[in-house]
């Protein structure tokens, strides 16, 4: 059990010391939001209707971008082998990695989302619903990202393949996430979307550690 806590603590401390990973992720998230008006024009009314979709796509891509670094460092410096010989089962350690990854990628995005909301002229109620749906949806993205990261860790050029691999699996998260906010949806279908999103997250959070553990043990050194 102590390995579980130690792993989360270590990852948070490492991220705090360098700080560049979290900053890069937030910058990417904001930049995706910033470039959309360049493409579709700055008309606030248009931006307002697109805003939930833009925020979700930005969070979606930013989370997938960050997943390659999940196991890459531990694989390269041999910590992964020590983790396979740890006292706690590998799946439990990976659950710790999922939590640490969520704290280091989804949380910074949530904190940065007001910036995007302002840029895209979102009104407060839509913004609050967006934050809620992001809160429920990002765990699913983290879980899928963990599986993607584990599957591609031993690939020399794994960096690009992982997001492409995981994106199709994450489509339901995007669908439920955006429909939970979209103004066009009636109230109860929006809440259903939100509930489904939560269910999806819970399911994937349980599946990911075991799937990723299997992927790591099978990917022979």
């Amino acid at each position, binding site marked *: 059990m102590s390995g579980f806590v130690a*792993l989360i603590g270590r990852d948070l*401390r490492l991220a705090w*010391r360098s700080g560049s990973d979290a900053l890069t992720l937030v910058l990417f998230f904001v930049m995706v939001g910033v470039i959309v008006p360049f493409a579709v024009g700055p008309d606030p009314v248009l931006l307002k209707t697109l805003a939930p979709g833009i925020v979700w796509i930005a969070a979606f891509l930013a989370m997938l971008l960050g997943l390659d670094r999940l196991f890459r460092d531990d694989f*390269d410096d041999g910590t992964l*082998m*020590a983790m396979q*010989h740890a006292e706690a089962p590998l799946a439990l350690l990976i659950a710790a990695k999922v939590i640490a990854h969520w704290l280091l990628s989804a949380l910074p995005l949530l904190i940065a989302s007001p910036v995007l909301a302002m840029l895209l002229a979102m009104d407060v109620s839509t913004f609050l619903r967006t934050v809620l749906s992001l809160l429920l949806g990002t765990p699913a993205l983290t879980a899928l990202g963990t599986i993607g990261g584990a599957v591609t860790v031993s690939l020399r050029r794994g960096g690009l393949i992982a997001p492409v691999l995981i994106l199709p699996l994450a489509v339901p998260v995007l669908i439920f996430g955006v429909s939970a906010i979209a103004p066009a949806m009636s109230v109860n279908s929006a809440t259903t979307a939100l509930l489904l999103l939560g269910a999806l997250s819970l399911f994937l959070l349980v599946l990911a550690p075991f799937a990723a553990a299997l992927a790591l043990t099978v990917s022979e050194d």
Partner: protein
Amino acid sequence: MSPVHGTPEDAPPRAIAVAGLGIERGGRTIIADLNFVVPRGEAMLLTGPNGAGKSSLLLALGGFIRPLAGRIDYVGRDAETRPFADVHFIGHRPAIKPRLTARENLQFMAALLGGPVGDVAAALVTVGLSHAADLDAGYLSAGQTRRLALARLLVAPRPFWLLDEPTAALDDEGAGLVARLIDAHLADGGVVIAATHHDLGLAANPESLALVALE
């Protein structure tokens, strides 16, 4: 976790036994029909040219590679420990994070590898890194990083040791440290299998298995 310090007389049998072991790497069979037993309190040195399969054998013993054929048995492994939670595998990569201090690295390893809470400070003193305990590990030299990796053996006592060239990047004084660590572990009834290019200078002369590069 069976205590390592079982008294010799009634000590439970403990050994690493390999029978008919075959390993293939990159499509090539590099080890075929290998048999040996390393009983409690004994060490075995794997020698042979590069590519003879020393590292691959250790990886197979550590459960990282699935052997082509044959069996690897850890005799004396008690039921409730997880399969490899009683094995220390120290390979070429030290598992050290440059941005953590030496102490933080070791504390993480102690928590990860579990077992009775080994004293991190004492381990740092034994491997001669106490003066650098609060420096980022990135400042350590290759030799010092290797010592930090070896310190893991002290903070989480485990009966079976698999060491891949433990004296790499170490000076004579460092090699002496490795010999002392292994001697102490053997005296405690541990089992050590180490791949090495030169004599480790152990007290009891260990068995040695020369792996020959196949075809």
